[in-house]
């Protein structure tokens, strides 16, 4: 099987902010290694101050690393051809506040050297994509947080980038705004774009990402798909109405069953589909009614807490 092309590569990335008061400085990123493949949606998650935004700023050439290398499409970010293929949505949508959406998008498209006719067409398309057509003449400073964030996403898309870097795309948005932004991100994913996003909204990350890297104190403490990070199957929980004592006793002796308490049957992580079916049949035979069968996958929240907890323990 052909391996997908690596779009973004980070090797041994370290960033130390020098301080006047401490000789060692503050280590914001510590020996970070990262690799993102074409078409993948990768998310860096982590608490505030874990080094996510610093990593993005280094990737974009806004700040410079103390050690290590980064490459996008196999080249340095200082190469202009790389910046022609990427889009960046900064956290908290920092755009010129005295211009409206139409003017802003025209300006950013102009930085790619597009002629006026193409710019006009692009502006229309992008405003339609982010649902800002009706508000195209509203000055940025008068836009709501959600409108600002959508405009900021539109400016990141002016060059139809292959790699889209999003820093906290839903930060500060209300639930409706978060939902809209998530839909837009999913649309970008559907269009085949490679996405790198930083977020601490784990639910949204779970919804859109293929792979996740958990950052804590500047290091990547866990990385993989959600399934990989979840670490295999979990216990099965079967909920029934109240069972007779004999039936409970018979079920408790069945393979993989751990506990039977009232209407709650718990089976071990090793339980196979057939062993679960056998238990369900037994419940049926005993005249019980199955209300719910659950094999809950650990949420990203569980993974996140576990990874950070383990890292904190290691550091102690």
């Amino acid at each position, binding site marked *: 099987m052909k391996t997908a092309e690596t779009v973004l590569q980070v090797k041994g990335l370290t960033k130390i902010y020098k301080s006047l008061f401490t000789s060692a400085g503050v280590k914001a990123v510590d020996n970070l290694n990262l690799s993102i493949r074409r078409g993948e949606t990768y998310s860096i998650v982590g608490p505030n101050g874990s080094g996510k935004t610093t990593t993005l700023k280094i990737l*974009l*050439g*806004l*700040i*410079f690393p103390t050690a290590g290398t980064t490459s996008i499409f196999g080249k340095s970010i200082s190469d*202009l*051809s790389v*910046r*022609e293929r*990427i*889009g*960046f949505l*900064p956290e*908290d949508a*920092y*755009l*010129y506040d*005295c*211009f409206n959406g139409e*003017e802003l998008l025209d*300006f*950013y498209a*102009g*930085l*790619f*050297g597009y002629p006026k006719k193409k710019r006009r067409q692009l502006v229309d398309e992008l405003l339609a994509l982010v649902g800002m057509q009706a508000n195209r003449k509203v000055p940025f400073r008068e836009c709501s947080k959600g409108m600002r964030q959508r405009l*900021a996403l539109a*400016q*990141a898309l002016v*060059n139809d980038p292959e790699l889209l*870097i999003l820093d906290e795309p839903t930060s500060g948005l209300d639930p409706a705004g978060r939902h809209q932004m998530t839909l837009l991100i999913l649309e970008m994913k559907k269009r085949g774009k490679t996405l790198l996003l930083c977020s601490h909204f784990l639910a949204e990350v779970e919804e859109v990402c293929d792979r996740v890297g958990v950052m804590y104190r500047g290091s990547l403490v866990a990385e993989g798909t959600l399934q990989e990070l979840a670490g295999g199957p979990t216990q099965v929980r079967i909920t029934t109405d109240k069972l007779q004592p004999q039936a409970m006793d018979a079920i408790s002796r069945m393979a993989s069953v751990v506990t039977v308490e009232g209407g709650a049957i718990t089976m071990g992580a090793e339980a196979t589909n057939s062993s679960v079916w056998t238990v369900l049949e037994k419940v049926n035979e005993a005249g019980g009614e199955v209300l719910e069968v659950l094999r809950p996958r650990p949420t990203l929240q569980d993974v996140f807490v576990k990874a950070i907890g383990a890292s904190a323990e290691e550091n102690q």
Partner: protein
Amino acid sequence: MSALLTRLIPLIGLILIAAIIVITRRAWVPALSHSVPSIWRIAGITVAEARRRRVVHTVIILVIVILLSMTFFSYLSPQEQSRMIISSGLTAITVFGILLSIFIAAFLIPHEVETRTIYAILSKPVRRFEFVLGKYVGALIVLAVVTVVMTAVLVVVLLVQARLVPSTPDSVFNPNLGAVLFAAFMNYCALAVLTSLIILISTMTSTTMTVISAFIIWTVGSMQSTFRDLAEKAYGGAKVLLLVIYYVVPKLENFDFRQEAANYMPISIVGGWHAVLLGALYVAIALVIAGIFFNDRQV
């Protein structure tokens, strides 16, 4: 000999820069095809932003009010009236031009960094020196518009007064337009030099520090002959310091032709040309250093 050498320094410097540009043209000509549109776009947004923020409008209105108020000195003789209008008008243009230059240029780059609007620009195919040059060109355009408007108002006031004020046997209202236009042009050149230095400082420090430094440069630059006189009388470390200030800080007073225009004195075109050449050299050096500093700046 020394005076001749001093006059030749800017010319030699400009010839050197021109030679470097010609020799290295193969390296920069391809890059220029990309850089010029980018610089122009950044300059465009800088001008549009200044227009939207209405700072320029306020300054122009203030200067117009000041210039129009100068028409009320009818108790003076015609020549004194014209002298008063030219002197005060050019002073208003100079002072407001410098204030505008400081407050526009000092905020251009630090404001972009502080409000983080720079992130969306530098993540696009824009080189950092293009950003710096774009900001400088934008500021120059704004200052040019302001200077032209203020000068035009002064010229109109002078022309109208020349028609309204009756001449007396021993005094005539002389608008001295040639000298006024020359002085206004030289004032604009001084603003161009000052703006380049403000941009250079702003690539290294915060807005507040830039504003303070800009005022210091303006003050010192306008008193360079005093510094030269002090250096001649001083000795030891103080002499070295005063000489360094004298040679490093641009001699903004050399761009000042207000006295000549207001007092109908002959204007030294050679002196003006010398100041412009030296100013161009300052601008070139300041922008190159600004580009280098900004290239290494963490934003």
